[in-house]
């Protein structure tokens, strides 16, 4: 099965979808579902073609590798699942046909990226994905979010371009497996190239300090595209991060330099950035009033885990990072889809305005529950396995500071995942939401599919870990050791199936006890006791409002990267205004002055030199 052919078919398919959508929006959106399904099946079959190369237009070269296949399957699954929601949003968009076109084009960009065989192809598809998704974001609530997304992604792209040009100049080839090899013996050049290269991964994954675009973009994008942004596009950064330790000989090149706890200092600094992302993401998520921004900050935190795991580049850590990518993709996509359902029915994502959705949409509630359990890293879901692997690796290497951040993130995540669960789904239904109809089956199907995957990989992780093992072997790292359903590690083994069985017993026991005892008494939503005072603002005393106020007060006055970014933007504008005033004055005399000054400088320079 020819990969170039699939790329061309996807390209043509996106344009056909555009023109079909111009005449009939709904049919166009069904086409997106079909096309993503076709691509998903195609990519699945490509597993038999591992190692083959293809080329396109003379410049683009593809190679089918386990790495590319792994990422593409994740991406195709997320795009396919989210596509089911497209038909419902067609009336809400100002440009539905444009949305469908960009949806499929960005999908093409990601698939092309993951199967690239040389740096120029990576760059081309990276840029295609960035600009096509930039046009989808402002169809939601914010134009500024689109600009921020594009600018921060550009910073990463420029790093990538600089790397590729530099390496081409030195080596003469851009093929991924060959281009970085000479850097193993040149630590100084390797440091520069490493920073430039991994910059693109950092900006895309939303690692501190480039994390500011995530809450803006994921929070304000159209509800049906946020799952793709969070579950899909952010993983592009993970791909580059993997290349930066897997293919780029990072550990070898820096082996003579400064080391902290056995890790070369540059890599350690990146891991610290990941650790800070975990902490910042967790704390900001705990504070969030909007469900989508909360999930976006959770993506920042999970991005930190992925970065740390991959940068460890060893038997357990790398496996943990890669598996966390898969788990986070599915769990995040599923939770965003669940919130999208709620938003579709109630027209809001502000947590304090919702409540009791479990009564109206129990399936959505279950999906959301499963996905946030995975996001928090609680067994028996997939997130637990990957976090276990990462923390094992951190403990094994003795990286205490980063392990602290990882534990902090884990515990903090219990706080922030519980907030939307209890405030949005549990509790009682607010009066204005009394008459909601249940969501249609077309919305339920992808959610159940994704939640099922989340559960499956938590119980039977062997399938994923085998593939990850093959990826590890392909870059020369010892694959993770498996024994039946158990994962063998230095400090103990994890048998996910056994954990699930024990959990199942516990669940059944709790269920029986619940059914046996008395039912709770229902109290009105706004029935608040205040020892003889009247309350005129009952809403403010409802538990969903200011959920974690005491905890939030601890870090209420935190410094904000958003403010720094705004200030930088303002400074650039000021320089521009200055240029405008000085060089583009209304009066021509000022220009003549500058010309005279320049001539004098030249003349004096000529005399002096």
């Amino acid at each position, binding site marked *: 099965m020819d990969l170039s052919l699939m790329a061309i078919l996807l390209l043509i398919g996106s344009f056909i979808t555009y023109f079909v959508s111009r005449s009939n929006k709904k049919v166009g959106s069904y086409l997106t579902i079909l096309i993503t399904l076709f691509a998903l099946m195609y990519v699945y079959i490509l597993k038999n073609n591992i190692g083959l190369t293809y080329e396109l237009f003379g410049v683009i070269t593809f190679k089918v590798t386990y790495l590319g296949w792994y990422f593409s399957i994740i991406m195709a699954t997320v795009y396919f699942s989210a596509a089911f929601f497209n038909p419902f949003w067609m009336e809400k968009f100002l440009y539905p046909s444009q949305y469908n076109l960009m949806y499929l084009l960005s999908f093409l960009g990601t698939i092309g990226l993951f199967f690239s065989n040389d740096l120029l192809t990576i760059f081309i598809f990276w840029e295609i994905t960035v600009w096509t998704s930039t046009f989808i974001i402002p169809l939601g*609530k914010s134009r500024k979010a689109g600009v921020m997304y594009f600018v921060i992604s*550009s910073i990463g792209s*420029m790093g990538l371009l600089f790397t590729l040009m530099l390496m081409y100049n030195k080596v003469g080839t851009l093929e991924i497996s060959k281009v970085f090899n000479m850097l193993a013996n040149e630590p100084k050049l390797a440091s520069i190239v490493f920073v430039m290269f991994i910059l693109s991964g950092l900006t895309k994954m939303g690692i501190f300090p480039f994390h500011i675009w995530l809450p803006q973009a994921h929070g304000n994008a159209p509800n049906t595209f946020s799952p793709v942004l969070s579950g899909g596009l952010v993983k592009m950064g993970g791909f580059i991060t993997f290349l930066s330790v897997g293919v780029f000989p990072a550990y070898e090149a820096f082996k003579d330099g400064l080391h902290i706890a056995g890790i070369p200092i540059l890599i350690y600094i990146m891991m610290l950035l990941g650790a800070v992302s975990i902490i910042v993401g967790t704390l900001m998520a705990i504070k969030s009033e909007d469900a989508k921004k909360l999930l976006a900050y959770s993506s920042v935190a999970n991005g930190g885990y992925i970065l740390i795991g991959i940068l460890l580049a060893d038997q357990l850590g790398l496996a943990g990072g890669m598996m966390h990518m898969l788990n986070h993709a599915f769990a995040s996509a599923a939770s965003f889809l669940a919130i999208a359902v709620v938003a579709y029915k109630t027209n809001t994502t502000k947590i304090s305005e919702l409540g009791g959705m479990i009564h109206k949409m129990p399936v959505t509630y279950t999906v959301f529950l499963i996905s946030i359990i995975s996001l928090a890293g609680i067994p028996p879901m997939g997130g637990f396995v990957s976090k276990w692997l990462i923390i094992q690796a951190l403990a094994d290497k003795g990286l205490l500071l980063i392990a602290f951040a990882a534990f902090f993130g884990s515990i903090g995540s219990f706080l922030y995942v519980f907030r939307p669960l209890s405030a949005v789904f549990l509790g009682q239904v607010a009066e204005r939401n009394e008459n909601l109809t249940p969501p249609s089956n077309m919305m339920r199907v992808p959610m159940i599919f994704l939640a099922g995957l989340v559960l499956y990989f938590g119980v039977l992780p062997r399938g994923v870990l085998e593939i990850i093992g093959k990826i590890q072997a392909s870059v020369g790292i010892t694959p993770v050791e498996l024994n039946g359903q158990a994962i063998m590690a230095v400090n103990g083994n994890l048998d996910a199936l056994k954990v699930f069985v024990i959990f199942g017993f516990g669940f059944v026991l709790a269920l029986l006890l619940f059914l046996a005892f008395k039912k709770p008494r229902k109290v009105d939503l706004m029935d608040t006791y205040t020892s003889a005072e009247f309350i005129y603002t009952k809403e403010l005393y409802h538990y969903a409002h200011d959920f974690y106020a005491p905890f939030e007060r601890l870090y209420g006055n935190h410094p904000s990267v958003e403010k720094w970014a705004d200030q930088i933007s303002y400074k650039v*504008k000021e320089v521009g205004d200055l*240029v405008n005033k000085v060089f583009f004055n209304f009066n021509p005399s000022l220009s003549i002055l500058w010309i005279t000054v320049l001539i004098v400088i030249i003349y004096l320079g000529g005399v002096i030199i």
Partner: protein
Amino acid sequence: MNLQILLIAIPLLLAFLSLLLKKQSNNLLLVAGVMNVAFLTIIQKGTTVIGGFQPPFGITLVVDNYSFMALVVLNILFLTTILMSRNSIEEYGSVLLVAMAGLNGMILTGDIFNLFVFLEITSITAYILASKNNNYKNAFHYLVIGTLGSGLFLFGIALLYGMFGTLNMHDLSIRIADVDSAVIVLPTFMIFIGLAVESKLMPFSSWVKGVLGNADDIVAPLIAGSYAATSLFVFGRLFSQVLVIDSSLKILLLTITVVTLVLGEFAAFSKSKIKEILLFSSIGQAGLVATLFVSGLVLPAVLQLINNVFSKVVLFTITGKIAKDTDTDEIAELRGIFADHKIIGVSFTIASLSLLGLPLFFGFYSKINVMFGLFSLNIYLIPALILFSTIIEGAYFIRMLLNLWNTGEEGEKSKLEYKTDKIVSFSKYKKIGVLVISIVIVLMGIFPSLLLDNLYGDKTLLNENNPEYIFEIKGGM
């Protein structure tokens, strides 16, 4: 062979005719445009001797690969601009005919004084066009700066003639190669200033803001498209073939051009009116092209130049019409204006994204060529600055695009009811014109070798950087 002179003579002749047949001047203009483009399909490379005096004493017209490319770009741009904005030409038909003659002359000529003459002709037409729609004060500003520039240009030519005794460009290039660069510092700089005024390099380009900021849909694409293309092509020929300079002066010139690039983008970022954003972007791009020419990278410079001028023609035509119909080009007042004009919006988007150098568009091909070229000379600072300015460029272009397509304040969903209530109407010529240019940009982005090989005849152009091949015909000597 003698068709070369017709490229200048026919527009000039028709210009004089149009003074007699005032009512037909616009039609004569169209005739001249079509004939020029038609001639280009049959023109042969070579030189034409004018007036019987053999070079290096007489004037020659040179068509080599470089000037052929320049002629194709210029004449196609000019014709397209006229076709798209026919209704705005009003009584300026004769002026445009003279402009066409002058622009073609600037590219064709092989004699440096003749270049000055054509530069003056072109500048005069530019001043007249700049004053369209009562834009007198800004046209006067342009006149003042332009005259100073031409005067200094003439001074530089006089110095060169005094030093080397010849005015033929090829002859000069041979003689200059024999002397030390320090000798020609002053004339080089004078000529640089003369061209920099037209080419919009800072700090000589203070006229651009007033002129382009108030230009309508025929003047703006002409000045930012045809005039810019010609002056930069001439800049390229002079600075990569004739006045080849070495390190000390080169560093100063590079500083000026790189500063133009960076500060132009900064200035564009601070603006909120579409025309002002676009004109500062033109200034920045001119700085980039000039940087490449001064560094000796001719092919990347030409590619970047072509990308810039074609995109700017599309952008300025659309913006000019919007400003003409609605009396404003503030982005905040035009939110969602593309909702009713999807073809125009798509073309506008394609042109902007090509300027940013995004893949699937021609700008990507030129950007990659530029980067490869600079890195192959082991220059690292300039690419870093170019990439930095690209980030800023991305910020303001995307901000402009997203706000022109989508409506609503921050925090509001992009809905049809928040759309601006300004109304614009685009003629079908405009729609067809911008759409065709956009399709060409996309096609050249995906299959760049198609068109370029046809022009050059052979060879893939990535890493093809041989000035010898480009400046093939040596001025007839």
